[in-house]
């Protein structure tokens, strides 16, 4: 079954587009990429990674999807499949990085958060500052909480889908979500009001 060339309309499901791409219809991938590129990109950027690394991980994720196109089976949502790949790519990246570097990175973030919190800025800059503080607090979360938070808050997955992506029990995902919220609220409390 050949899909129409213009896939920009959301009417064609992601899964159908992926199957079409696996069968050799290159334009189907273009539509898929346009739909999900920002979400995948933000998933990496919100991890607190530098832009260059986030882009590199984003590139790796899409390449893995391209190489595994013939193995794709539409048992789950395409979005779930894509973010499973993205998460594995991120884990590989963390494995490559030494733990010491990551600790330094996180401690630097905490120092920066404190600095930002103590600085009084004009109202126009507050929104920008809030955005920065939010991303820094997210990156300060433990990995398991951070990925659950981002998958739910940024990418819009349900807890059940996140459990599927992360290959964890749903209760554990629920607990990670709750703890992540608590930590973020505690860290960002003084930015509100």
């Amino acid at each position: 079954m050949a899909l129409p060339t213009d896939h920009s309309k959301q009417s064609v499901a992601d899964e159908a587009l992926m199957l079409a791409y696996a069968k050799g219809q290159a334009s189907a991938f273009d539509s898929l990429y346009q739909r999900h590129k920002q979400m995948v990109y933000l998933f990496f950027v919100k991890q607190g990674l530098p832009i260059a690394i986030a882009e590199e991980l984003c590139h790796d994720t899409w390449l893995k999807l391209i190489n595994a196109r013939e193995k794709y089976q539409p048992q789950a949502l395409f979005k779930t499949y894509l973010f499973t790949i993205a998460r594995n790519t991120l884990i590989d990246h963390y494995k490559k990085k030494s733990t010491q570097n990551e600790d330094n990175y996180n401690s630097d973030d905490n120092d920066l958060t404190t600095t930002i919190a103590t600085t009084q800025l004009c109202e126009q800059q507050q929104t920008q500052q809030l955005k920065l503080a939010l991303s820094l607090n997210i990156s300060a979360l433990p990995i398991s909480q951070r990925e659950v938070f981002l998958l739910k808050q940024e990418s819009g997955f349900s807890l059940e889908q996140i459990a599927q992506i992360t290959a964890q029990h749903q209760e554990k995902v629920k607990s990670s979500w709750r703890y992540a919220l608590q930590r973020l609220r505690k860290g960002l409390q003084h930015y509100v009001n």
Partner: protein
Amino acid sequence: MLCNVYVRGYSIMSTNHTDDNDKETQKLTLQQQSDEAFINQLYDDVSQEHQSQPSELLDKRILSAAHKAINKSNNPDKKSHVTWYSTLATAASLTLVVSLVVLQQDNILPNEQADRIQVKDVTFKKPINAVSAKESINPTSVKESFVDQEVMAEQIDYKAEPSYSALSGQMESSVATDGKVAVSERTLRATQYKKQSNSAKQKNIAQMMALPPVINNNITEIGQAQEKDLAIRYLSIKQFQQYTLSNKTLHANNQWLWSLKSENDMEYIINVFQGEQQSLAFRLGKDNFKVINAHQDTSKILSLKNKSLPKVVILNTNN
């Protein structure tokens, strides 16, 4: 009745416990909802800002990779697979063959060296120092003796060299006026001669090494025969006189008591027949004896022995 009381009490306790759990769950749920609302509010505030996008370069890289993958799968390069497998198979086969040949050469090398030693012995006519192939051969000693003989040959070449140089020197002294030119030319010629002699020697060695196995075996047999000849005793004058008389009698009937077996620069080796099936070999020094062919026609066959050996007359040169 007691049982009913216990059941009622347990049910009341469990109900209280469940209530506590429910309250705690509700509390947690409320807390979570509150946290979610807080975060959502934050996100609403932040989302007014423009969300960042991946760079255009990244977009191009990913999309081109996707299109290339499809083009590659549509036109699979089967040749490259075949070439890869065939190349690997060829390399493996070559490695196997070379290793087998090398192993085989290691096994046969001592025997070949022994054959070459015997070839050298025959060439130099020094059978006394020859190493017999029948004897047990230590490869190292064989190699050393081979090298020694090579050194001797080289020394002989160098002995011949000065005479040539002297000759060229005479010619140069009569013709050339510049001494430096003469010396340099002489040196050049000497070097060329040395190179020629070395190359000729290497060529000989290479030819000997390239001899086919059959020729090698023949030469080995000759070497063995020469070695065997060394064990033959000399014919005494008394024995010679007795055999001469007997031979004269036999010669009348076109029968011969002796025949020439072989000869070299120093001596003859003859067979003296004792009967139809027996013969004795003797050595005759060329200083004392001379062997002459009895007939020009060598096609005639000796009647005593069914072998084509030359009929000879032996003369004592001392008398």
